[in-house]
Every structure is written in C-alpha cells, then in structure tokens.
C-alpha cells in the first residue's frame, strides 16, 4: 500500500505540474483531479480489504425494487 501511495502521489503531482505548465483549462484539471481521486479511493479500499463493489449495490437495488 505504501508503494502504491508513493507511486500515486508522484505521478499525480507530475501530472498536475504538466497540466498547469501546458496551461490547461481549470475545468480539465478539476475533472482529472476528481477522476484520479476516485481511482485512488477505489484502490485504497482494495488494499484495506473493503472493496468497493458496485455489483453488490446494483443487486441490492434490484432485489429491493423486486425486479
């Protein structure tokens, strides 16, 4: 997990640096940051054995609605 966090922080910092240097639009940077953080959360959850499982959520909704 430590390796992943170091890898993520380094590549994330580099990507932000390049985006700012390339004068990317603020909206583009914010979408990148949002997606990267969602990805980071998904992976940290995996490392902590609390996997985010959308299939289980969908299945629960389908069961509740009785489809």
């Amino acid at each position: 997990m430590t390796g992943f966090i170091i890898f993520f922080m380094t590549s994330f910092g580099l990507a932000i640096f390049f985006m700012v240097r390339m004068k990317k639009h603020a909206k583009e940077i914010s979408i990148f940051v949002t997606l990267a953080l969602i990805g980071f959360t998904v992976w940290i959850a995996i490392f902590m054995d609390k996997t985010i499982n959308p299939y289980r959520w969908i299945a629960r909704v389908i069961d509740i609605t009785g489809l």
Partner: protein
Amino acid sequence: MEQARISSWQFFLLTFMYVLGTTFFLRPGGLIAVARQDAWMIWLWTGAIGVAMAYLWMKLAAYYPGLSIVQVCTKAGGKLAGGFIAMCYIGFFVQLASWVVRNLGDFMKSTLMPHTPITVFHVMILAVVCYATVKGLESIARTNEMLTPIILLTFIIICFLMLPEWNTDRFQPAFRLEVWKTMKETRNVIAFPYIESIVLMMMFPYVKSRQKASFVWGMTIATLILVAVTAFTVGVLGVTRASHETYPLYVIVQEIRIGSLIEHLEASITVILLVAIFIKLSTTFYCAVTGICQLFQLTDRTWVAVPLTLIVSGLSLSNENVVENISWDKRYVFEYELIFGLFFPLLLLVLAWLRKRRVQH
C-alpha cells in the same frame, strides 16, 4: 470534439467484433447447460430482440442526427435530468469496461498463467487500451479492420482441424426445448452481448454513411457466427462436456492433435481472445472517455483516459471470483442493463417527441 470519420465498413466491423468480442468464449458453455443440444437456437430469438432494440436506439438517434447518446441525453432531457442520465450511461460504460477487463483476467489466470497476479493482466491490457483511446477512434477502427480477418481465419482453421471429432448424433434428441422456461433462464443473453451494444451509439456521429445498415448487419452476422460457434461446440464436445466447462472453445483447441507434430494449439485461441478483448475494451473505454469529454466539454482525451484506467482496474477487482461473476450475470445482468437498453431510450424518445411537438405548435 474529435473530428474523426470512419467508414460504414469499419463501423460494421466494430459492431461485429463488439457483439462477438468475449461472447463466443464465455456464453456457449452456460447456454448449453440450460438449453442442451438446442442451445444454438437461443441466439436466434435473443438476436432478434437485440436487433429490435437496435431499431429503437436508431429511432432515437434519428431525432438528433450527428449526436452521440450522451449528447442526446442532455439535448432531450435538459441539463439537469439529461445530465444525470448521461452520467448514468458513463457509469455504465465504465462498469462494462471493468467487466470486460475482469473476463480477461479470469481467463488468463484460470488457463494459461495461474501463478501471475490477476492485476498484472488488467494493468497491461489497460495500458494498451488507454494508448489506443488517446490515439482516437480512427486508430481503433483501423486496428480492428486489420485484426478481424486474422481472428476469423484462425477460427476457420480451428473448425476445419476439429471436423473429424464432429458427431451429428450429439444434437439428438433435437427440438425438446421448454420454450418459456428456457427463455426466462437465458434472458441474460439479451443483455450480454446485445444490450451492451448501446455503447456503439457513442460512435454514430463519426460514421460517414449508412450507420443503421452497418449496425444491424454487424449484429446479425455476429449472431449467426455465435449460432455456428455454439453448434460447433455441441457437435465436437457433446452436451455433457461442453456444459461443464467455463471455456469450452479453449478445451476444443487444446484437444487438436495432428500426428505428433501439431498439438496443444491453445496459445493460438488465447491470442484470438486477447485481440477480441482488446477491440471490445478499446471501444467501451473510448466511449466512456468520449462520454466524459462530451458531457463536460473537454477537448483533450488524455487527461481523462489516464485516471480512468485507475478506476477501471480497481473496479475490475470488485468480484471475488469467476463464480460470483457468473451468478451476478445469471440473476441481475438483464434487469440492470434493461434500464440502459430500454427504459432510458424510451424515456428519451418520449421527451424528444414532446419537444418536437412543442416546437411544431
């Protein structure tokens, strides 16, 4: 927005490979377990429903020519409700991409490389797919145009090599299907691969001409190939063996033996599957990235594609194992995908019709 243009032939091949994609490998075993020697017939009615749904989607596309499904959502449903539906579609594409990645991981781990961590396969294919997505639709379409003949040729050669094992008696007794029960049990086949094809609506604006014909013919020809693959599996392996294997086609190729010189050709079928998965995944991933770019009006796909690989590779580990995958597919996939294949398009169609009427009055 991307200025790519693809020909109707390229779109036909993309549709064909998208429907065939992982289906020819994953579906026959389960179908034969349910419908036994009549399994090939399931493709005919599920294919018919798939084509009927395609006509519904094309009717929706005709209301807004030159727009993708995400753009249609915001145009017909407005910024708020339409934006929400568009987000749902993007989420669906991301989830589909993670599902396809997982199929690859499961296959490689359970057959060829059991000691390699599954994430390695996921990350490696996603790196290639991310590069293809950044390069654009034209690159994906051209790659598909080049690879499809190789896939088909290899498959035809395999069929010819296994013809001595064919036994027509394995189809007896034929036509003993309990129609309603089988239809209910095989409803998931409508979802995967047919409802999933709604992903291709993201590409409609880039096709030069004859989108509808290419789309419908792609689905129809792929369905006929799937009928042939299922019949071939029953004819060569028989019902009992085919229904007990997760990847019956792999077992067939494993058993090819010509003298003592040519045997164990499973690597060739693995390459075919890898190529098919690459095409399907590139298409799905590209559509997810393009959907995000269109919804938020972004111009550069690179900065969306790269973090999305992180999400897709993470989500592909959601399911514990292949058994959980199969049970989810059997029980929930049809109900879930029906929302995207039927409910949302119908809703958007009604909204588009109401808007058109309001303008006319």
